[in-house]
């Protein structure tokens, strides 16, 4: 799939949330899309074997794991994942999933090496920008990186949300206006540097004018469940800061023995009434029935998913429906803050974390 442009359709004055339309060679779509990330791709591979439909989204990501013993990124399976994305008319975005320490020690040489490694493997090529980089430094590396790309390819600069606060807004604003895709490697929204940068991100995005061309902000690496923020969905949390595409953190350090012992009641399921993740016990107390079990029963075993996967697969679909709801409010010109505040998870998140960050314009 080839991107032509992304244009601003509407900006909600009070919340700063922006509606964008992207035009590609295969059609158009609105922003706020949850990508098929590693876990959902695994689910889809099982579903495809049984001729079951897959997720309807224009994005697929592949978070890459750092192999400590070989000291290299694990690229196995990348080709198959890309093929799956292309077959389903999706943009394919590989991403070197770094932790905070890896981001802090990232050098330009390493960034360039990772960029070159992915150059022949994808059409959207990420370039991770070291967290101390200034706009001038980035521009010189960008110029160099662009010379490697073919006409079919797009460069996706990736900034850490813990980037030096003196440089983050300059680079972000520059790329928001110049690139098609702009990656942000996110955390749990707990540190002050992160909150300041997200505040910049939100207000710069909100300053876009209707009709203006801009980048799609791809939020990567955030927790699926924001456990430090009352279990609100990461996709919603980063919507509040200007995110357009969402790809949650991949869990590479899974303890399979521990996983075996889990029952459905131990797993967070997305509750679309409360607009947050909840567990069976809380659901029974609130509604008198168990939403998680209903979710499991709504996807029969014949669809190729175990109960972990069923909960995650359906939770992703329900989250996407809620992001579409936000888009519908924007299209209809309804007062967004008032609509969002009608739901517990969203209202509590906006009233707590978001109040610490500059509002809208």
């Amino acid at each position, binding site marked *: 799939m080839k991107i032509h442009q992304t244009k601003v359709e509407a900006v909600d004055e009070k919340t700063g949330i922006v509606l964008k339309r992207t035009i590609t060679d295969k059609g158009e779509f609105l922003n706020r899309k949850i990508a098929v990330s590693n876990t959902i791709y695994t689910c889809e591979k099982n579903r495809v074997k049984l001729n079951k439909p897959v997720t309807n989204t224009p994005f697929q990501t592949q978070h890459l794991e750092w192999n400590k013993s070989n000291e290299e990124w694990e690229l196995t399976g990348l080709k198959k994942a890309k093929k799956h994305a292309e077959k389903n008319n999706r943009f394919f975005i590989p991403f070197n999933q770094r932790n905070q320490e890896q981001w802090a020690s990232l050098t330009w040489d390493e960034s360039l090496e990772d960029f070159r490694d992915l150059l022949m493997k994808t059409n959207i090529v990420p370039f991770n920008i070291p967290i101390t980089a200034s706009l001038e430094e980035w521009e010189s590396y960008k110029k160099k990186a662009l010379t490697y790309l073919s006409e079919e390819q797009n460069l996706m600069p990736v900034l850490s949300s813990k980037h030096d606060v003196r440089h983050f807004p300059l680079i972000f604003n520059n790329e928001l206006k110049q690139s098609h895709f702009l990656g942000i490697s996110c955390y749990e929204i707990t540190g002050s540097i992160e909150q300041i940068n997200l505040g910049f991100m939100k207000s710069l995005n909100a300053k876009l004018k209707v009709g203006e061309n801009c980048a799609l902000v791809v939020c990567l690496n955030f927790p699926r469940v924001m456990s430090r923020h009352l279990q609100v969905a990461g996709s919603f949390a980063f919507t509040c800061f200007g995110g357009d595409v969402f790809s949650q953190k991949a869990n590479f350090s899974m303890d399979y023995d521990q996983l075996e012992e889990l029952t459905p009641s131990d797993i967070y399921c997305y509750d679309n009434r409360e607009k947050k993740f909840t567990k069976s016990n*809380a659901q029974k*107390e609130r509604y008198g029935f168990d939403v998680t079990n209903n979710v499991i029963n709504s996807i029969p075993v014949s669809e190729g998913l175990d109960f972990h996967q069923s909960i995650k697969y359906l939770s992703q679909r329900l989250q996407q429906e809620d992001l579409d709801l936000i888009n519908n409010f924007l299209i209809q010109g309804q007062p967004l803050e008032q609509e969002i505040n009608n739901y517990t998870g969203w209202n509590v998140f906006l009233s707590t974390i978001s109040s610490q960050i500059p509002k809208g314009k």
Partner: protein
Amino acid sequence: MAKAIPKWVQERLSKLWKKFEGKEMTYEQIESVLKPDEKTTISVFLNELKKAEWIDIRRGEDARVRIYTIKEPNKILREIITP
């Protein structure tokens, strides 16, 4: 002048009204009715009610304890409908 409140706040308020009507309540009593809501959710809930002027809050004999009373819903609705 009372203002409209979000839907999720209305749902929880009706639970409290069923239990206490216009009687005074402590935070602990509110917490026990609104289970499984977490403390942060309850404090945002009470703040929304305070902002919209749907609740009276006074200090108890022990100044650290707050006492809450829900205003009569019919009176509030009249205030909203006829400003």
